[in-house]
Every structure is written in structure tokens, then in C-alpha cells.
């Protein structure tokens, strides 16, 4: 997959959290890449490991309780080997992150100006005047009205949508090639969600940066992403260009997810599909065999691989294991 345009290449990444003396992988054997000028969406239920993956890429896991194995290559540089000091040079400059809760992710006792300016202080040699101009430019870029006034304000004085624009401005400050957006619209009203997504798309077109968009909202994926990776229980189960994923999903989990959102194919009054059970907790996760097996008990045992691996079934379309060949919804016949 690695081409000249590749920004981030994750190879066989495991991220384990410590409980007592044992490490349990929340992300297991994940390989994925992000190219320039691309929006890669990572979707999955809560607890599937998508935020853990994102946090690992920007290096914000607490090293005392986390074990990271595998490679995260950024322009050929393995980030997992970096010390804090070097990582800090990258963070905010090469890779930046947009968080879910715009109120919590801004410091309540610092002005908006100070919080955006901080990014510039540690990565540029701009003087006071130049930093002021840059902050003003950023606030204009993210569509904040009356930026001179907003600069002097504190987060609690802004609306949710405005706060998220500020968070985006912080992430954009140094024009980073890689932006990780962790559920950027989850905490916002639906109308504001659409505005923020449009903003992110505009910015991506302007800056040609690569964006990793973490979300559980398939609507957001359909609207914004170029490519999608579906995660389940710490693993990527399917990866495909966005139109392929929505028109020709293969993995049972992807199909179940898509089947559980309302669309024009559903008749009025028809009940939506519900995926049985829940994602098992980290300590109880089956480490062998197909992890989705327990949630589709009507599929016969022979359908599942001993050790399902992610493999390409068409150019750019990868699926884990072969159970998809035998999958059908409960009560339906095999196609």
C-alpha cells in the first residue's frame, strides 16, 4: 500500500492496557495507511478500539499503563520508538488532533487567543505580531464571526459549534499534514454537525492534509470519507473505498451495521435490525478465532476460520476471514 503519498502507515499494531499485571490488547494486529489528501474513516461501536488507535498514533497513551507493539511510520519514521521530547516536536506540528467534547477539550481559564497561540509558540519562531495575525487568520478560516472579540473570550462564553471551530483552529495552527478527528461531531446538534463536517471537508481540500476521522456515525462516514475501515473488538474487519463499502459490504459485522440504520429500503413500520449481544469487555475478549462469531450464532461453525486474517478480495477492498461467504441475516435464506 505504501506509495509516495503515504503519510501514515500503521503495521501490525497492538495496543494493550494493563489491568493488574496483565496487558490486554484493545487494538490488535491493526495495519492501515493514510495518504495525503485523503479522509480515512474508522468506524465501529463504542469500545471497539478506534479511539485507542487514534491516541496511539498521536502518542498520547500513558506509557506506564500501555504497551505498544508494531510500527507507526510517519514519513518513514517509526513513532513508537520516539521519546517524549521528539514526539512533542511532531505533535501539533505534523500530527494534530480534534477531540469529541469541545467544552472539555478547551482550558476553561485561558482565553481563546492564548489556547490557539500556544500551538504556534512551540513550533514556530513567529513573533507576537505574527502570531496574532496567524490566530486571526485561523479564526477566519474556521468561520468564526467577529474573531477579534472571540479571541479575548473564554470557552464558556462560546456556543458548542463555535467551541468546536476553535478546537479545529488549534489543530490547524501549524498546517499539519495529518489531522486526527476523534468523533468531532458527536457532542454537537445535528445542524451544527453538518456545518462542522462541511468545514472539515473544505479545510481538507484547502490544505491537502490527510484526515483520520474516528466515528460511530455511518451517516458522517458516507458524507465525508474517501475510504473506510470498520473495526470490531480491536481488529479491522473490513476496509474499502466508501462507495464500495456502502454498496457492496462483505463482512457480517459491516453488513449488520449497515442493516441497522434506516434507509429507503426499509418499509414503514418494519423493525430495524439489531445486532445481538454486546462487544465483550477487554478482559473477556476471545483471543482466538472469529471475534464476531458469538453475535451471529445462527451461522454454522464450519463458516468460521480458525485464524481469520485480513485479506484483499478486490483492489482496495479487504475483509477479515471468510465467514462473509456464508453469512446471511437471521431468518433469511443464503443468497
Amino acid at each position, binding site marked *: 500500500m505504501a506509495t509516495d503519498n503515504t503519510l501514515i502507515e500503521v503495521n501490525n499494531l497492538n495496543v494493550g492496557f494493563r489491568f493488574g499485571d496483565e496487558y490486554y490488547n484493545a487494538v490488535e494486529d491493526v495495519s492501515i495507511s493514510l495518504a495525503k489528501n485523503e479522509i480515512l474513516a474508522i468506524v465501529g461501536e463504542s469500545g471497539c478500539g478506534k479511539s485507542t488507535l487514534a491516541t496511539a498514533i*498521536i502518542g*498520547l497513551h500513558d506509557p506506564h499503563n500501555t504497551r505498544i507493539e508494531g510500527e507507526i511510520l510517519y514519513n518513514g519514521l517509526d513513532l513508537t520508538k520516539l521519546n*517524549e*521530547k521528539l514526539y*512533542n*516536536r*511532531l*505533535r*501539533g*506540528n505534523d500530527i*494534530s*488532533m480534534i*477531540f469529541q*467534547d469541545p467544552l*472539555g*477539550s*478547551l*482550558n*476553561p*481559564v*485561558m482565553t481563546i487567543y492564548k*489556547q490557539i497561540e*500556544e*500551538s504556534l509558540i*512551540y*513550533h514556530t519562531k513567529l513573533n507576537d505580531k505574527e502570531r496574532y495575525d496567524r490566530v486571526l487568520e485561523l479564526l477566519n478560516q474556521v468561520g468564526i464571526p467577529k474573531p477579534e472579540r472571540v479571541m479575548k473570550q*473564554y470557552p*464558556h462564553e462560546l456556543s458548542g459549534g463555535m467551541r468546536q471551530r476553535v*478546537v479545529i483552529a*488549534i*489543530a490547524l*495552527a501549524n498546517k499539519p499534514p495529518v489531522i486526527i478527528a476523534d468523533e468531532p461531531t458527536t457532542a454537537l446538534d445535528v445542524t451544527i454537525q453538518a456545518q462542522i463536517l462541511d468545514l472539515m471537508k473544505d479545510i481538507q481540500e484547502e490544505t491537502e492534509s490527510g484526515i483520520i476521522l474516528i466515528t460511530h456515525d455511518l451517516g458522517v462516514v458516507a458524507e465525508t470519507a474517501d475510504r473506510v475501515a470498520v473495526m470490531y473488538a480491536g481488529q479491522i474487519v473490513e476496509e474499502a473505498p466508501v462507495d464500495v463499502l456502502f454498496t457492496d459490504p462483505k463482512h457480517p459485522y459491516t453488513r449488520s451495521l449497515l442493516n441497522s440504520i434506516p434507509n429507503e429500503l426499509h418499509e414503514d413500520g418494519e423493525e430495524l435490525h439489531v445486532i445481538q449481544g454486546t462487544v465483550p469487555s477487554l478482559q473477556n475478549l476471545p483471543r482466538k478465532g472469529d471475534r464476531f462469531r458469538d453475535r451471529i450464532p445462527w451461522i454454522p461453525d464450519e463458516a468460521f476460520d480458525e485464524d481469520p486474517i485480513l485479506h484483499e478480495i478486490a483492489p482496495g477492498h479487504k475483509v477479515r476471514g471468510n465467514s462473509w461467504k456464508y453469512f446471511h441475516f437471521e431468518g433469511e435464506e443464503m443468497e
Partner: protein
Amino acid sequence: MWKTVVRRLIIMIPQIILLSMLVFTVAHFMPGDPFTGIIDPNVDAARLEELRRAAGYYDPLHVQYFRWVGNALQGDFGRSFAQKVPVTTLIGARAMNSIRLGIVSTVFTYAIALPFGMLSGRYNNSWFDRFVMIYNYVSYAIPTFVLALLFIYIFGYQLQWFPTRGSASPVIPKGTAPYYWDMFYRLLLPGFTAGILGTATTTQTLRNEVIDAKTQDYVRTARSKGVPENVIYNKHIFRNAFLPIASSIGFIFSGLLNGSVFIERIFAFNGMGDLFITSITSRDYSVVITLVLFYGVISIIGSLVSDIVLSLVDPRIRIE
């Protein structure tokens, strides 16, 4: 900002009026009359009665109250029964001594509590954190007089670093530079003792606030900007963890001032606390009442200072 201060100052007025009524009521129930202790006990009872009437002893309560308030506003708090001088003369110089001691103690309290709280919160569960925890238990539990006597023994008697008693030297001429230096020097040991006794609450609060703050999302945002770890602690975390500390800064000061009653006694420090105890034991009511009023006002000013400091550091509670 100024609106907050002005509003807060206006709130103080009813507080002080209530306090004065309370103090007046207490004074009213005290035994004795305006002539107790200053008049020859052999004076004829009828003559005494006449004097009392002339002094307004039988006036209605509200008349007496307003007369008292009127006099107090003009700086007249009556005369000390025991020492035969106006109360203001007695309190004046000592109040300054006590306030100086309060300031030095507060400085010591924060000089110890802020680094202890920040570091034990940052490195929680480390050996340093455990040391601070033990320090907190000990400094919180130890009685004032035990620590004071211990310090007098170690620093004053064994090491001979500090004078152990008095607020000013009797031999150095007043008003000279060495005199003021000596005065400051004499503040250090009692100030340090009182300061240590006040650290536990602040240290523990700050530690818990730091532990809480370091998992907050804005800290993660700061990290994602590439802000160095030390700056994250000294700027982002400290400013947020400091908020509850800031709100107690005035109370710490007034608390230290009130609490210095024992310290002043033990260090034979010529302050209000010492005067307070002397006045109580000699039943010098006019002094006691004035001191109660004074301590009350100090507490009210303490909470005023707290509120102003809090509105300075926390933009969310400013009235715009």
C-alpha cells in the same frame, strides 16, 4: 471585574452591621457597668446611680447601640478597665504586629503547600507523595503548643538561630534599619510555626485537584499541541487546580490571624492574640468586645479577599 469588586463590597455592609449587633448583644450580657474598676468602691450607691444615669446606662437598647456604633466609627471603643488607657491605644500597635505575623505565616504556608501539593499530585503514589501524606497527617494533628515548643527548643535553644520571645528588641533604638530588620527576623520562627500548621488542608486540596485535572480533556488537548510536560503542569493544570485554593486564600489569612492567639502567647509575641488572652483572664471586657469585633471584621475581609482573588483567576464567575 470592577463590577464584581463593587458588588462584593456592598454585600459587606449588611454583614458588618449584623456582626456589630451580635457583638453588641454579647457585650450587653457581660457583667459590670461603665464604672467597674475605675471608680472608688466606697462611693455612695446613690451617687453611683446618678453617674450611671448620666452615662446613659439606663437608656433604651437601640439608643445605646447607635451611640456605641457612632463612637466606634469615630475610633472610640471605650477604655480598658485593667490598663486604664483607651482600647484603641492598646490594640493599635499590636494589631500591626499580628497582621505582619499573619502575612509571614501565610507566605510560609503557601511556600510549603504549593510545591508539595503540585509535586505530590503530579507524581501521585510515588515515595514523595507518600512522604507528603505523612507530613500532612502530622502537621494537621500536632497541637500548636507542641510544635511551637519543639521549634523553640531546636531553633531557639539548641541551634540559637532565632530569638525565642518578643516582637521587637528592647535594646536596638526604635525606627532604625537594624530595628526593622530585627522585627522581621523575630517574625520568622513564629511565622514558620504557624505557617506549617496551616499547610495540610491546602496541600491536600491542591494534590487532589492536580490528580483530577491531569486526566481532563484540556490537558490532552495541550499535549496534542506539543506543549512540554512541565509547561502543562505549571500552566494548564496549576491554573485549574489553584481555583479552590484561591477561594480559600482569604480564609487562610484570617484563620492564621485568629489562630495566632496561641502562637503569640507561646512566643511572647506582642500581638492581638496575646492581648486577647490577657484581657479574658483579667476580665477586661471592653478590650475583649473590641477584639471580637475586630476578628469578625478580619474574617469578613478575608472572605472578600477570597472572592476577589477567585474572580481574578476564574473567568467563569466574573460578572460582566
